[in-house]
C-alpha cells in the first residue's frame, strides 16, 4: 500500500499564554514567540500510517507545505521512519488558507506515484480550521472520511476506517484510494524516534518543489485571492476573579463547595 501523510509545521501550541504574542501585522502570531513543531494531529496521522505499514507492509511518503523551516518537520517524519519526503516551498511570505493549501498539496500529489491512502491531521494547532482534509479530497475527486482514529486493510482494494463521532464511533468500508483526516486516540500517540534514526534522517534526500514547479500561480497565496482571509487578530484576556473556597478544615471547605454546587443544581 502506498500511503501519503501531509504534515503541517506550526507554532508550538503548548506555548504558555503569557509568552504568546502577535506579529506586528496583527494578522498572525509572532513566529518567534515559541518553537516550531509538527502539528500533533499530523503526527497522529503519521503514526497511524506507520502502524498500518508495520502490519501490512507498504511505503509511506510525507509531504509538507511551508517555508524552508518545514524541512525540520520532514526530517522528524523521516526519523519516525517515513520512506520518502517531499516539500512545497512557500517563500511568498503569505499564509495560505485551507483551500489554497489543498490546491498546492493536490498539485504535488499529482507528481507522485499512485497513492492508496492519503492522510491529513484533523485540524492544526494554530489556525485549527479543520478544512484541509475535506478540501483535498475534493481537489482529488476522492472519497473522504473525517475524525478517523483507526484504519485496517481488508483485501487488496478496500480499507476499514473507524470514525469518532458525537457519541461513539462508526466503522466504514471505503475503496482505495481514499482521503482521511486523523484525530487523536489512545492508540495513535506518535512514537519517539530513536537517536540513531534522527541522525540517519539527516542524510536522507528531500524533494523540494517551488509553486512554479507545480504549475501553480505565484499569486495563489495572496490575501486578496484567498477564500478565507484573516482581517483581525486579538488576544482575549482571562477574567481571573476566582473565589477560592476557604475554611478552617477540609470538611468545612468541602461543605461550602457542595453548597455552591447545590445552589446551581437547584436553580436548573
Amino acid at each position, binding site marked *: 500500500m502506498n500511503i501519503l501523510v501531509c504534515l503541517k509545521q506550526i507554532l508550538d501550541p503548548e506555548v504558555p499564554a503569557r509568552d504568546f504574542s502577535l506579529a506586528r501585522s496583527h494578522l498572525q502570531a509572532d513566529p518567534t514567540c515559541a518553537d516550531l513543531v509538527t502539528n500533533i494531529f499530523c503526527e497522529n496521522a503519521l503514526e497511524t500510517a506507520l502502524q498500518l505499514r508495520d502490519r501490512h507492509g507498504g511505503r509511506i511518503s510525507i509531504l509538507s507545505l511551508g517555508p524552508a523551516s518545514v524541512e525540520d518537520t520532514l526530517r522528524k517524519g523521516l526519523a519516525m521512519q517515513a520512506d520518502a519526503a517531499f516539500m512545497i516551498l512557500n517563500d511568498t511570505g503569505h499564509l495560505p488558507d485551507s483551500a489554497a493549501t489543498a490546491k498546492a498539496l493536490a498539485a504535488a500529489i499529482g507528481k507522485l506515484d499512485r497513492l492508496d491512502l492519503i492522510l491529513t491531521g484533523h485540524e492544526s494547532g494554530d489556525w485549527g480550521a479543520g*478544512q484541509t*482534509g475535506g478540501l483535498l479530497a475534493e481537489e482529488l475527486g476522492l472519497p473522504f472520511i473525517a475524525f478517523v482514529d483507526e484504519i485496517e486493510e481488508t483485501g487488496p482494494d478496500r480499507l476499514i476506517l473507524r470514525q469518532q*463521532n458525537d457519541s461513539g464511533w462508526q466503522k466504514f468500508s471505503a475503496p482505495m484510494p481514499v482521503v482521511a483526516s486523523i484525530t487523536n486516540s489512545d492508540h495513535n500517540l506518535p512514537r519517539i524516534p530513536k537517536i540513531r534514526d534522527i541522525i540517519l534522517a539527516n542524510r536522507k534526500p528531500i524533494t523540494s518543489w517551488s509553486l512554479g514547479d507545480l504549475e501553480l500561480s505565484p499569486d495563489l497565496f495572496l490575501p486578496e485571492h484567498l*477564500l478565507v482571509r484573516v482581517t483581525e487578530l486579538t488576544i482575549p484576556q482571562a477574567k*481571573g476573579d*476566582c473565589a477560592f473556597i476557604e475554611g478552617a478544615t*477540609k470538611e468545612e*471547605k468541602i461543605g461550602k*463547595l457542595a453548597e455552591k454546587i447545590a445552589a446551581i443544581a437547584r436553580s436548573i
Partner: protein
Amino acid sequence: MSEPVSTVITALISPTQERASAGLMGAGQRLSETVGAEHVVVACGPEDSESASGLAHGADRVLLVRSPALVRDRQEVWLQCLTRMGSELNPAAIVLGNDALSQEITPRLAHRLGGASIGDAQTLTAEEGHISITRSVYGGKAMAKVKLQGTPAVVWVRAPSMDPARGRATPGQIEEWDFATEPEMKIQLLETQMDAGEGDRLEDARIIVSGGRGLGGPEPFEKLKELAKVLKGQTAASRAACDLGWAPHSWQVGQTGKKVAPQLYLASGISGASQHIMGIADSKAIAAINTDPNAPIFKHCQFGLVEDFHQVIGPLQEKLAELLA
C-alpha cells in the same frame, strides 16, 4: 419585476439535539436578517410534522427532504442533496451545526459550490457583501475575525451556545423536497458503537463534571460518574485523560472535542490548557478542584477549591446527595 431574493440556508442534518437545533436555527435566522435574505431551513422529514411546524416559526421556508437513503450516517447523500439545493437556491451562506457529520461535510460542500468554508464560528456578520465570522485560533490564545471572500460562505457554528430563533408571527411555508436519486455509495457503513454512559449529549447537558490527567487513573472516572448522577449531569474529560484511555473519546471537551455550554462545569485534575478552555468558555459557571493554586483553570473559574480530588470526591458526593435529596 422584483429583485431576486438572496437566501441563507440553515442545514439541520442531525436534528435530534434540541438545544443544538435551536441554536443553529437562531444563528441562521439572525444571519439571514443581517444579509436581508430569505431564511430557508433544510431538515430531514417529513415523518415528524410537529417539529416541522416548530421549524416554520423560525424560517421563511422549511424544506423537508425526503429520500430513502437519507439517514444521518451517510455523508455522501447529504452532501449531494445540499450541493443540489445550493446550486438551485444560490445562497449567500449555508450554516451548519457542530455535529461530526456537519463538520465533515462543510469543506466538501463549499468546494462543490465554489464557495468558502470555515468552522467553529462564534459570531457571524455581513460586511460589504461578504460574510465575516469570529473564531478562536491558536488553541484559544487568540480570537480572529475572518472574512469569507467566496460565495456561498459554508460555515459550521457552535450551535448549542447560540441563542435560539425569534418566533415569527406567521410561520413560514413547509415544502417537501424529493431527493430520489440514490447516489452510488462509495463508502459503506459497517458498524456503529455508542460509548457507554452517555445519556444526553454533552452539548445539551446543564451540569458537567469533568476529569483530567490529575485524577491519576481510570477508577476516579467511575466516581465522577456517580457524582454526575447525583447532580443529574454528564461526565466529560480532558484530552490527556482520553488519550490515556481513562475516558472514551466522546467525552473529550475542548478545541478538538465537544464545545459545551452548561450552567456549571466542574473540572477536577484539569490544568486548564487554552485548548481545553476553548471547549468550555461558554459555560455559565466554571469551577475547579485542583491541587495547584496556580493552575491556569482558576483564571476561568467562578469558584475553586485547592485540594486533592481523591480526598474531596467521597465527602463531596455525600454532602451533595444530602443537599439535593
